């Protein structure tokens, strides 16, 4: 059993990347769930997007020989940039309106 694990560790393959991605995903999820600060929530989202990208590229490398996964990852990066820009603008607006960046204190649609 231990020998199996060790040989598995010796040859990084598809599942290694998937596991790293799963851990990063879980960490991002945790950040989204627990952090009060909206910017921390945004960081959690970035972690999750990165985890997804690792998966796309891993499958593109090991399971197909096409570059479609690369393209999708590229679009994910593009959308992440747009999302962060908008997200931060919203956070700034919220800070101006509510005087806080904590998502749990923002519970009204209108001030």
């Amino acid at each position, binding site marked *: 059993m231990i020998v199996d694990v060790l040989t598995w560790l010796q040859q990084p393959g598809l599942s290694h990347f998937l596991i790293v991605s799963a851990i990063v995903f879980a960490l991002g*999820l945790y950040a*989204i*769930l*627990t952090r009060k600060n909206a910017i921390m*929530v945004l960081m959690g989202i970035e972690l999750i997007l990165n985890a997804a990208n690792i998966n796309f590229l891993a499958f593109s490398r090991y399971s197909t020989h096409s570059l479609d996964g690369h393209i999708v990852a590229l679009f994910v990066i593009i959308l992440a940039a747009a999302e962060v820009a908008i997200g931060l603008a919203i956070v700034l607006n919220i800070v101006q309106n509510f005087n806080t960046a904590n*998502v*749990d204190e923002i*519970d009204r649609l209108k001030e």
Partner: protein
Amino acid sequence: MTPDTLILLSLFVWFLPLGNFVLLIFFHRRIPRNGDWIATSVVFGTLVLASIILVSKFMLYQADIIQTNVRWIDFKVLHGGSPLGVELGILIDNVAAIMLTVVTLVSALVHLFSIGYMRGDVRYGRYFAYLGLFTFSMQGIVLTNNFFLLYVAWELVGLSSYLLIGHWFEKQSASDAAKKAFVVNRFGDVGMFLGILILYATFHSFRFDVVFNGIRSGIFPGGSEPWLTIAGVLIFCGAIGKSAQFPLHVWLPDAMEGPTPVSALIHAATMVAAGVYMVTRTFAMMTGDALLVIAYTGAFTAFLAATIAVVQTDIKKVLAYSTVSQLGYMIMGLGVGAYTAGFFHLTTHAMFKAGLFLGAGSVIHAMHYALHHQGDHHTDPQDIRTMGGLKEKMPITFWTFFIYTLAISGVPFTSGFLSKDEILAGTWAFAQLTGHTLIPIVAFSVAGLTAFYMFRLLILTFLGNHADDNRIQYIHESPHVMTIPLIVFATLSFFIFYSFNPFSAAGGWFAQLVKPPDFVVPSAMAATSPALFAETVHNVHLPAMLLSILVAGLGILGAFTTYYWKKIDANALAQKLAPIYKVLLNKWYIDEIYEYVVVNGTKRVSTILAWIDNTIVDGIVNGVAKLTVILTHGVRHTWTTRSIPALLYIVASALLSLYLGWEAMLTTLPETSSPMTVIQSGIVGVVVSALSFFLFYGGVGGFDAKIVDGLVNFVATLSGVLGLLLRRIQTGKVQTYILWALIGVVVLFIWFR
């Protein structure tokens, strides 16, 4: 000019008006003059493009059908059948090229006219935006090669019609008319939708050619031929709604509440013709029975509307009923198999009817101005009884209106004569071939009626003396932006643009371009063979033409004797024929019948349902409650007074309890009884009888107080506690909700492991 270029051009024609809409709906306040010049010039640009398409189609690709397809949705192969998907595409055949030009021409001229007519309107920019939306939607109907886009564009057209009828939505009647148009059209569209679904379920494609080829190769919806008839008639239901045919024609006259140029564009020339256009598109798949339905619907509508138009006094209402009548004519023409004639009449009618409406708009504009100057706000500027004698003051409007009237009446040398003559000959030939003689009789009488009411309108509006001597001095001709479209439409109402032979369209470019498609339905089900039909039409053409001239002449003569020379007193005639006059004046009471049957019927059913709910359902519920109360109170009463009935009740309940115990004992006793089982059953019996006696005797009051109330209180407490718990969960915090959602995800993970 390759076919690809034509497709590209048609895309421009299609989408440029949409650009108008988007630009004007958002930015009309920031553009000088609210952007009317942009909208108008863009639509004139599309007119140029459409003419290029028509000419190159005529010159280069006369026999070709230019088509392009995009696979929009691909469902792959589902359930082992043939591949499912939705294809969108453009189809430019001769009919589409002609229709494209007609729509852009009318739309462009209406845009131009509106600049004058709508000047100073509160929602001037929005009006032009909606015109753009309408033109875009209409081109969608024209250019599509499949039922899917057809339906989408169909509904978009309905929407823009709704928006434009309700343009002056402050007026209650206008917003009501808009709603009526929308709702009435839905009735027809449901049928069309079902028809399309039947076809898609059978052929797994929305494309016209795929469906037609499928039918040609012997595949029928539902496996039987009557289903094809049903599908055809259902699709025709859409045309009944949009083209205002008999059961659903009621919305079109009311739609005259919209601005007059809109009536010209949508409710005379293009949108209402969409139904006719759709029938020409699906003509090939119509079975003989379906075509017969279509023919009779058209004939009846033509007759109904023509008789109503004779007595109307509102200038636009007369034209509206005339439109319904002429649409019936086209539908009838298609129904009898005169495909070319039906579509030809659509084209010529679009020209002179748009002109008629614009002319009416010019008159209303002038009347409105005059009444406004007089300080008269009560007289209706659309009532022809308050007009008369406008000929001298508005020469251009009069002469153009005169030409349109000649055209619609079917006087020789006009376009209307050519097309109407073709339809009449078609009905005659149809009657000869199949024996349906009612259709040509109706068709010829409607031709006479049309000439009569149109000249009545012309005489009452323009000839004679004006109703008010004071007012006539304020009347003046409309500005150039309004008269130029009138002149263009009047020019296009002459025969020369359609055929060089003033007495027959058969040799003209139109007949050369528009040839009836081959029926795809088996010959046994098709009405007649096109070749035989064409030959019969050729034979009856001359007598039909002479008869139609005669009938039109009679109608015109009648109108002049009655309203110009006043040889016949119209009012006396109306009194003499009071019952008929009243029926006609009230539009055959169709609105009233709908009010009575549909609206009141719904109310009646609702009342009955409400009565059932109130009396029977509630009665049972209340009755049970009351019975319980009576029983309980009665028992309590006897219990407290210890009267004879109380004793009786106790004795009776004791006996009943004993009986129940005995029954319980017997049922629990097994087949093979031993002493132990007998004792057990005896105990059960005793317990049951004791319990029931307790319930009867002391429990009736106590049971209610203790157990029932206890249960109710328990439920209340439980829900209270649950509510408190749930309130703890509902924090209003986003992350808590994410948490719960994720818990759901995990549960799904485990569930579908």
